[in-house]
């Protein structure tokens, strides 16, 4: 029997879980703990830190705190911070030495590495999200070996097995505890038909409106008369989808956008060389097809002959002589931007030289569809891809872009090569992620694509920009000359579905309403002012689910809620103590009682969407790790007692 399903014993009740917020917070008001309190003794003083903006997170932090206190081995204090203050506080290298336990969430991608490296990679110390200053060289090497190198590029099964080793190692080491997977809940009225959410909020609009890979198509039926079928063959064309978002569209400039709301809207207007289905499989899009031309067994040191020395300041800022804003494609792995006065850097010009000399990790070749046009009538060519890549240099997303991209080069008018720095098992997904600009837009300064400054976004996407009122609304209308509709769905050579599936989205207009308050957005939905929204608090979802006029779609996203142990601070440097606390996390009950069932307990660090490449056998992995994550106070107490005895700590626990 799962101990969490046993209603007897020391399992927390619903009342206790929900009541914990008040009681633990009340106890926290009594005073601050002293970080430097000297000798270790039990009950151990522990400070859990959390942002106050997230009600659900606050509730389960309190629930875990209460369970810890109930064992008698911990005196727990919860400290709340405003989100920005919290992030600023925890993203400091010295935070790792404070001995506190931060609670937060992380969003990843289809790449399994995004669920282990940010929290555990040594390079991320003081950044999101290696908050406990973990410097575990062997683990770093394991994470690298699972993504980079010809072995894993050639053998996906080997890659999956290497990730399995990582998840098991992380469960043993226990630098952090995952609590629940992030789920996204969308609420729509029944006029919206066929809607299917994407695992990432920023991809949902694009995906739900039209995804031939998954035969997903959303349409509007204002005369649905109670019909609820979502089979695409019943679709109708036309209408306006009114989409409620809780934050502004800050930018229409793809390389200068890091928020999900801007990215979400941009996906209607701009397109990339490839597209992904809901499982992360890659399909050619603006590219008619692509192939992996060459893989070479190199690491980043191979670029040493092409690198130039560049001085750095105390904070690691590169000071190019007389050149402003030069993108550092690769910094020599043996150099340290902060510690060294000068580092060796590969610039875009140097990268071109290296490629010309035949030094690169991978070469992908993309053949573009001919006759693809932008909304201004300009025809897409390889030059657009090269110019777009150039504009991504030194942009707000340069770090993740040039984490893998080495160089982009036009081969002829409709063929373009993208080179990766090293053999990279994620290259197929990561390399072609640029949202292609017109040549004129590619020359614009940072944030230059901005309708409020008379330079509206122009892409190849199925929707054209129509109007935008800052903080109020955005409207896009379907373009009259969408390239795929002109060519027909057969132009997608990989497509093997019914011929009658439309060659583009069928909704005429997308109205995005920006309504920041959750309750106001919910009221707008009930008042039939919007058709679809997300991000409503979990306590309101039940009402919508019970109402025949609405549909709630829930999907497990790419991320999880977690907390981290201060592994470099005594007594948390003892893995047994960390494992003990992990046994005090009532995951299933948190989902059931705090989230009202709108969530999923996380038994591993691997969300569903990354399991294809992130494990050889998820069921076996979960079976193994579930036991290590079981809610088990007896096991926890036994481990704590062992730590106390072995390390000779004082204990006043009865």
């Amino acid at each position, binding site marked *: 029997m799962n101990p969490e399903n046993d209603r007897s014993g020391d399992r927390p009740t619903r009342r206790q879980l929900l009541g914990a917020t008040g009681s633990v917070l009340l106890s926290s008001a009594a005073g601050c703990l002293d970080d430097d309190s000297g000798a270790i003794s039990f009950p151990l003083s522990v400070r859990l830190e959390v942002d106050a903006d997230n009600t659900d997170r606050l509730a389960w932090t309190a629930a875990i705190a209460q369970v810890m206190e109930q064992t008698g081995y911990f005196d727990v204090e919860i400290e709340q911070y405003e989100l920005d203050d919290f992030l600023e506080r925890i993203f400091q290298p010295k935070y790792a030495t404070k001995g506190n336990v931060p609670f937060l969430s992380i969003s990843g991608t289809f790449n399994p590495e995004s669920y282990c490296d940010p929290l555990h990679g040594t390079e991320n110390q003081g950044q999101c999200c290696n908050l406990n200053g973990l410097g575990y060289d062997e683990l770093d090497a394991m994470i690298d070996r699972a993504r980079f190198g010809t072995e894993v590029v050639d053998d996906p099964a080997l890659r999956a097995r290497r990730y399995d080793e990582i998840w098991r190692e992380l469960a043993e080491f226990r630098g952090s505890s995952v609590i629940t997977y992030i789920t996204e809940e969308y609420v729509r009225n029944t006029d919206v038909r066929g809607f299917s959410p994407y695992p990432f909020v920023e991809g949902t609009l694009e995906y739900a409106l039209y995804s031939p890979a998954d035969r997903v198509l959303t349409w509007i039926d204002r005369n649905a008369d109670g019909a609820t079928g979502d089979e695409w063959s019943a679709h109708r064309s036309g209408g306006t989808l009114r989409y409620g978002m809780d934050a502004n569209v800050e930018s229409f400039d793809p390389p200068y956008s890091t928020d999900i709301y801007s990215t979400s809207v941009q996906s209607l207007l701009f397109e990339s060389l490839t597209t992904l289905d809901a499982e992360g499989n890659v399909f050619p899009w603006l590219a008619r097809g692509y192939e992996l031309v060459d893989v070479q067994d190199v690491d980043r040191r191979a670029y040493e002959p092409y690198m130039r020395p560049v001085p750095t300041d105390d904070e690691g800022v590169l000071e190019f002589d007389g050149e402003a804003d030069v993108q550092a494609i690769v910094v020599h792995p043996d150099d340290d931007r902060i510690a060294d006065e000068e580092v060796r850097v590969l610039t875009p010009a140097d990268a071109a030289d290296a490629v010309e000399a035949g030094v690169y990790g991978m070469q992908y070749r993309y053949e573009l569809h001919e006759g693809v046009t932008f909304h201004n009538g300009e025809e897409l060519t390889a030059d657009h891809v090269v110019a777009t890549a150039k504009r991504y240099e030194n942009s707000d997303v340069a*770090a993740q872009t040039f984490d893998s991209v080495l160089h982009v080069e036009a081969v002829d008018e409709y063929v373009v090569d993208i080179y990766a720095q090293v053999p990279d098992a994620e290259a197929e997904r990561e390399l072609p992620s640029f949202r292609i600009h017109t040549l004129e837009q590619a020359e614009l300064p940072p944030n230059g694509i901005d309708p409020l400054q008379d330079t509206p976004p122009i892409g190849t996407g199925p929707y054209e920009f129509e109007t935008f009122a800052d903080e109020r609304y955005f409207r896009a209308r379907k373009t009259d000359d969408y390239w795929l509709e002109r060519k027909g769905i057969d132009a997608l050579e990989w497509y093997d579905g019914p011929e009658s599936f439309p060659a583009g989205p069928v909704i005429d207009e997308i109205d995005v309403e920006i*309504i920041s308050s959750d309750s106001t957005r919910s009221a707008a939905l009930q008042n039939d002012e919007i058709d679809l929204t997300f991000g409503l608090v979990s306590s309101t979802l039940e009402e919508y689910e019970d109402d025949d006029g609405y549909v709630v779609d829930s999907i497990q996203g790419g991320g999880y809620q977690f907390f981290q142990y201060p592994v470099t601070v005594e007594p948390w440097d003892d893995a047994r103590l960390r494992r003990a606390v992990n046994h005090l996390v009532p995951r299933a009950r948190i989902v059931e009682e705090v989230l009202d069932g709108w969530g999923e307990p996380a038994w591993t660090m691997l969300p569903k969407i990354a399991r294809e490449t992130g494990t050889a056998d998820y069921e076996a992995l979960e079976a193994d790790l579930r036991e290590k994550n079981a809610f088990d106070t007896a096991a926890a107490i036994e481990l704590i007692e062992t730590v106390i005895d072995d390390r000779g700590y004082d204990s006043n626990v009865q």
Partner: protein
Amino acid sequence: MTLRRYVLRRILLIVPVLVGVSMLTFALVSLTPGDPVSRMVAQNPSVTAAEEAQLRAQYGLDGPVWQQYLTWLGNVATGDFGVVYGTDRPVSAVVGRRLPETVALGVFGWLFAVGIAIPTGIYAAVRKGSVGDTVSRVFALSGVSIPNFWLGLVFVLVFVLWAGWWDVRPPREPLTHPETLWHLVLPGVTIGTATCASIMRVLRTSMAEELNEEYVTAARAKGLPERQIVWKHALRNALSAVVTVVATLTAGIVAGAVVVEVVFSWPGLGRELVEAIHGHEINLVVAITLLTAVTVVVCNLLADIIYAVLDPRIRYD
């Protein structure tokens, strides 16, 4: 000192006041942890510490605060309030776009407050102890006690969801369009209620005091009509106290807009300020704060001028 010289002196004093306010705001925002780059980095796990520093240098956020302030002040002297870091949009353009929305909301709230408070306050003072007076006191007490965000949500529930008289979202029409003006009613009443209640309480008290003065007894003894006594003599004197609170409460309306604009999705400066603070957009925060400071200073100045009109005996030193 003549009123004209006094007003001139007060106008000149605005400059050091605004410099002080900008300095304080700049310091306070800088003291809070984080900046636009740290927010950007929080959304992007792959940025290293060195790359974060590089971004900070790119945005000119790497210098000491005093240096950043002096640069800002120098630019402001030439009419350049800087740009919003996240979008590179000029701050003056952002504020200019939002200002009319907040002014409309504030004016509506203010007119509602004064329009309701003055007749009701007079009525309550004249009919002291009556049922109407009791009702107005309950309203005044409730109005002062109820937080405006809660009142806003109740209005949304009752008048939008239950009665269906308004939409939740503001219309996409210009401010002068009847539909937009109609939409202003709920947020305007929400923002004006507390002010209305405060004015009502002050006016009732001061009016009641005036009505007990000897000159009112004398006027009554002379046989002047009660309407003339109340509206021409007592009210004019009672208004001096009201003018003081109206000036202060106008600043309260500006502050109240921060919450009310969020509840009613009203795209004004209050909502922009909240977003700017969250995003550590220092240029925008300082610009909006300065504008608020100007509003408060001007309101106080106007109050002083109105004092002089209401009571010519007042002299300014």
